[in-house]
């Protein structure tokens, strides 16, 4: 059976017929899926606020209060980052949640996250890190192997944390690990970045933001927030389509250009399947060309349809944990070719073993 949270996200009007017992389950699933505040905004945007009984409303309002304070902190943090990097006079491109927030996107409503992600030209990585260090951010101490892992294979520097505020920033030079087959040409992303009217920052183009969100969800294997991330894609796709009638053609062309066809396929396929995202008929036919072969797809359907549900024990079937684990392993498989991956995993395994004993 479809979890109640997904039922309500796809058909918000349903809440008019829920018992308090149903609400109990809905709030619990939404809380653990990190979608409690967003659930409130979805109901609000559908004019349904008055239909929420007081007991669940208190939890939704609490989550929204938390999310609002998060926005305050985020705004302050963006200012601090801008101040630290101002003198470099290079475009700082904010990614994912921070970008949605700066743009006032509907996908920013109720979205709480822990790291700010920025993208810069690889040549400027060093000076950006140095400037952040001067302004109080520091990297955790790391052994030579981990340093090498990040510097040689990853698409980001080791994460930095501000010593006073405790906030984290990840400085990227690409949106996928350089060892990933699908890793796009970063220069193409930078070339289409847009300056934002507020807060003096830059963001990726509309299509690139969505493609980034898609490759993050379907390549990186962190599925604890899987449904939240899928909901991001659903909202981003709908928002973009509303603003620009040519959007669907643009993103198909862009996926071809960047070599991210497969990620776009998964985004549209699972958004449509799980969250009933409206995708025009003509577009439907075109993106089907990006699908993997039907055996792979059948297997992934089994896994993703299990993994992309609320992370709550009432939704877990006997395969849920396995599905999340398998997709995590798959993400490593995609991250780097086997001749790099195997030694890496063995090394990590040995290290965990020795530190535990």
């Amino acid at each position: 059976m479809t979890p109640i949270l997904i039922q309500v996200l796809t058909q918000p009007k349903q809440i008019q017929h829920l018992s308090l017992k149903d609400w109990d389950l809905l709030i619990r699933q939404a809380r653990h899926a990190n979608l409690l505040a967003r659930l409130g905004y979805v109901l609000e945007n559908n004019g349904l606020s008055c239909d929420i009984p007081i007991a669940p409303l208190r939890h939704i309002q609490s989550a929204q209060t938390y999310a609002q304070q998060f926005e305050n902190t985020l705004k302050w943090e963006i200012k601090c980052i801008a101040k630290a990097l101002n003198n470099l006079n290079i475009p700082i491109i904010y990614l994912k949640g921070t970008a949605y927030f700066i743009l006032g996107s509907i996908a920013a409503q109720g979205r709480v996250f822990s790291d700010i992600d920025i993208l810069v030209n690889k040549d400027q990585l060093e000076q950006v890190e140095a400037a952040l260090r001067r302004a109080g951010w520091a990297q955790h101490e790391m052994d030579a192997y981990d340093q090498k892992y990040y510097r040689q294979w990853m698409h980001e520097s080791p994460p930095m944390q501000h010593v006073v505020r405790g906030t984290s920033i990840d400085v990227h030079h690409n949106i996928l690990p350089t060892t990933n087959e699908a890793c796009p040409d970063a220069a193409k992303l930078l070339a289409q970045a847009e300056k934002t009217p507020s807060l003096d920052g830059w963001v990726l183009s509309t299509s690139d933001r969505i493609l980034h969100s898609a490759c993050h969800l379907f390549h990186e294997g962190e599925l604890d927030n899987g449904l939240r991330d899928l909901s991001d894609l659903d909202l981003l796709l709908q928002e973009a389509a509303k603003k620009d009638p040519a959007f669907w053609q643009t993103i198909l062309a862009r996926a071809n250009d960047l070599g991210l066809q497969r990620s776009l396929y998964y985004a549209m396929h699972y958004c449509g399947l799980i969250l009933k995202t409206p995708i025009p008929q003509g577009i439907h036919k075109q993106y089907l060309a990006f699908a993997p072969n039907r055996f792979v797809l059948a297997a992934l359907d089994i896994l993703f349809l299990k993994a992309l549900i609320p992370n709550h024990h009432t939704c877990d079937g006997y395969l849920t944990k396995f599905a999340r684990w398998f997709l995590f392993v798959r993400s490593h498989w995609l991250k780097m070719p086997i001749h790099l991956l195997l030694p890496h995993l063995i090394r990590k395994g040995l290290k965990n073993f020795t530190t535990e004993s």
Partner: protein
Amino acid sequence: MALLSLNEQVLIKEIGGGFLAFCSQSGETIVLNPITYKILKLLNKPLDSSTILAILHTEFEDQTEQLSVFLDSAINELIGRGFIIKEVAIIVK
């Protein structure tokens, strides 16, 4: 000359004869002494620091000696904690 102004997201409260200020952007709560209170009140409209200093001189006559040193450090602190904003003035020719 840089103009200073009060961050819109600052609340100031008088309580028990003292003053408190809260900045919702940085989340900081601070106790204000009479001089910092006056500075924040003045910055309801943008001013540069020399104008502020001139006004403070007339109001806190007994402390004129230390005022300029105090003002500089107070302004730096208040900017760092988000209570006041430094704007670069646009010179219209």
